[in-house]
């Protein structure tokens, strides 16, 4: 701490390293640094001694060697002859896929449950409280196992859909829930350019609509600020969102490939494997319970005076929510929400338990066991998760800075 009197003048003595607060911190830091360096050196030395004793070394060449195992669930081309690196990359994409899906659904569950928990309806709010408590207090591992068990032991096998006396039937005639996975219709363009290009086209249209809708809203705000009357934007926005999409569907001929029972299994459509569904759904309902608590806390954090003040200004209830309550609640909700997304990404590593080929299962599981390169595999695995979480932390920081209360 600063002191008002001038520090005593005089030559530096060695005892000042311990007795003088100005120099003592250097002593402590030097000691800490030396201790750290010594212990790291000791550990690394042990590592190399142990590795040498077993005739091992640290070498990343195995990444280029053929993996030699198959992966069912994959987003990119992969065969058992592909390299370990590609297997790891398939795993990375699978991790990101399940994390993304679970983030979306967990947000939906969480927001619904959080808002309903504040409902005036006694029964509904109690029901949501029970949901939150039950799911928060039971390990996600058990939820994953329970849902996986539903997928493999309760859902009917494809053969039960066969024949005249079938015991199961397809849901609405277009989707099949079987113990080998869920089959849903695959949308495609009859006169399109082929899979990936069509998908990009749809995404491009949606992005365009997003910016279009934003421009319309900005214009409405400008007019409102100039004249005090806000023009109606709902129809325009709906047209901008759905018009181009429907036009594209008509031009290219949108059509669905419905899964059909062929032989002993279903063919066609999109197959979502049981493990993916188990991990996706379990993470969604588990994290949804946490998000519900965040949402509730965020809404409750906006003081009632804000709502009343807005009401006193004559703002309609719907706009009170969107202009006064939500912007303030989101400030409280979003940072923990993003860290829940981070938790989902990290918890998706539990996919190894049900055999979903995420990066922990490919790089940290099969590749590790087949090559015996434990240290390299685990280091790469940690590096991947660390990168993701640092990126997400950076996002939180950017957001926090952007929404920080602007003070004088």
């Amino acid at each position, binding site marked *: 701490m600063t002191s008002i009197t001038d520090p005593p003048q005089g030559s530096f003595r060695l005892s000042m390293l311990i007795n003088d607060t100005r120099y003592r911190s250097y002593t402590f830091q030097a000691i800490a640094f030396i201790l750290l360096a010594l212990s790291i050196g000791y550990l690394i030395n042990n590592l190399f001694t142990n590795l040498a004793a077993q005739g091992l070394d640290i070498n990343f060449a195995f990444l280029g060697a053929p993996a030699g195992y198959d992966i069912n669930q994959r987003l990119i081309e992969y065969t058992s002859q592909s390299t370990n690196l590609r297997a790891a990359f398939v795993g990375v994409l699978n991790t990101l896929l399940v994390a993304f899906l679970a983030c979306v659904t967990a947000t939906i569950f969480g927001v619904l449950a959080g808002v309903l928990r504040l409902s005036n309806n*006694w029964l509904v709010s109690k029901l949501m409280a029970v949901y939150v408590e039950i799911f928060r207090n*039971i*390990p996600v*591992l058990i939820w994953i*196992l329970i849902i996986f068990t539903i997928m493999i*032991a309760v859902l009917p096998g494809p053969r039960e859909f066969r024949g005249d006396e079938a015991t199961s039937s397809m849901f609405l005639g277009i989707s099949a829930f079987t113990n080998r996975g869920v089959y849903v219709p695959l949308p495609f363009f009859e006169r399109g350019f082929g899979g990936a290009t069509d998908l990009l086209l749809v995404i491009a249209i949606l992005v365009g609509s997003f910016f279009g809708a934003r421009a319309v809203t900005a214009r409405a705000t400008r007019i409102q600020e100039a004249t005090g009357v806000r023009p109606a934007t709902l129809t325009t926005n709906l047209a901008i969102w759905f018009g181009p999409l429907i036009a594209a569907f008509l031009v290219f001929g949108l059509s669905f490939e419905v899964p059909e029972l062929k032989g002993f299994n279903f063919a066609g459509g999109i197959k979502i494997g049981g493990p993916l569904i188990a991990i996706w759904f379990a993470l969604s309902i588990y994290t949804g319970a946490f998000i519900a608590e965040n949402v509730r806390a965020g809404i409750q954090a906006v003081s009632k005076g804000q709502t009343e003040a807005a009401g006193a200004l004559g703002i309609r209830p719907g706009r009170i929510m969107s202009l006064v309550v939500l912007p303030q609640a989101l400030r409280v909700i979003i940072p923990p929400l993003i860290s829940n997304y981070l938790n989902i990404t990290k918890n998706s590593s539990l996919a190894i338990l049900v055999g979903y080929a995420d990066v922990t299962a490919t790089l940290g599981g099969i590749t590790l066991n087949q090559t015996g390169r*434990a240290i390299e595999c*685990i280091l790469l695995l940690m590096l991947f998760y660390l990168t993701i*979480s640092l990126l997400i932390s950076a996002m939180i920081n950017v957001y926090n800075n952007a929404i920080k209360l602007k003070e004088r």
Partner: protein
Amino acid sequence: MTDRSNIAFVRTEDVPAMPPPPNAAGPVKWIKDNLFATPANSVLTILAFLAIYMILSGTVPWMINGIWTSPSLAVCREILDGTTGACFAVLTERWNQLLFGFQYPTDLYWRPGLAFALLFFAAAPVLFFDLPRKLLIFTALYPFIAFWLIWGGSIFGPILALVSIAAGVVFYQRFVKNSFALGFFGALVTAFIVLKIGGFILPDGEITEGAMRSVPSRDLGGFMLNMMLGVTCVSLSVPLGIALALGRQSSMPIIKYICVVFIEFVRGVPLITLLFVANVMLGYFFPPGSGVDLFLRVVIMITMFSAAYIAEVIRGGLAALPKGQYEAGDSLGLDYAQSMRLIILPQALKISIPGIVNVAVGLFKDTTLVSVISMFDLVGMIRGPILASVEWQGVYWELFGFAALLFFITCYGISQYSQWLERRLATDHR
């Protein structure tokens, strides 16, 4: 004043209040206000009733028809004879395995059982501070007693550890008045020296007096393993977390960045990768031939993991204290250790209690992850030996339900305790 006799009628007492109309009072009004206030609300209520009905109609007959004694699933199905019903017999039949794992010696179950019962006495003075402070002596002795009860072996090992720690504490209390650093680090050195001397006098395994049959760590399992990991790691990670949080707040850049890197690294990776490290990698970092057992390696990694999270919680508590508290400590002439011990930490820890309990609950749930690295905790027992056995293949719901119930009771209990503590510690008189 007017003369009363001139007036035809003057009411001298109040009319008794009429009872409210039947639909504006009592249960009817409550139902109207809370369940059917608006059409949307009514729809929600009906949907909620439907959901409750569906859940109950599925589970209640299943539970009521449950069979509690049967040697196997096949016999159970025979008894049920086609009706819906649970087969809780798997719980009674495999009760000991679920709690203690399948390798712990059957005749020694009383030892972990006793350790578990004593845990409540040890934890009570920590959790409820109205109890006499003298009980904390038992809390201090408990780790050694529990270690001896669960692992067995010679009693001299735990006693030696106890003596060396006691020597350290004595040294600390003698010298902490001079300087905290001297007291603290001197105590560590003293404890270490006493331990070494003791190990010299009493070589391992040669003393058999007071020895109980020893049980190796790999024989531990079941819910006992979850409890052990949870309790050990939480109690170890709180001090470590405090140290990390203080380090992260420190003005010394080297110490600060060591702590920042450690915390951010551990928080950035999933626990499962740290358990992989414990399983396949950590052994390489110990001196050749030391053969640290898996339980200890897992405890090290989980402790590091939760310490990083606890450190962040405590950092929040430290940051929430008004700056005046730090300045007050300085202006009283207290040095860093004194102002932390006497002024800052008591307040900061109080603010952090809910967060610490959240981390503890999360940690306790995460102990189930050890089943991934083939330790047979409760979930590991269910997935492995029990569901794979011939008798009980296919008994999913009873087992998962039981595991879920155990964890729910424990975690919900802890979080209720935390809420009670928060109310109890609220001193801001609002």
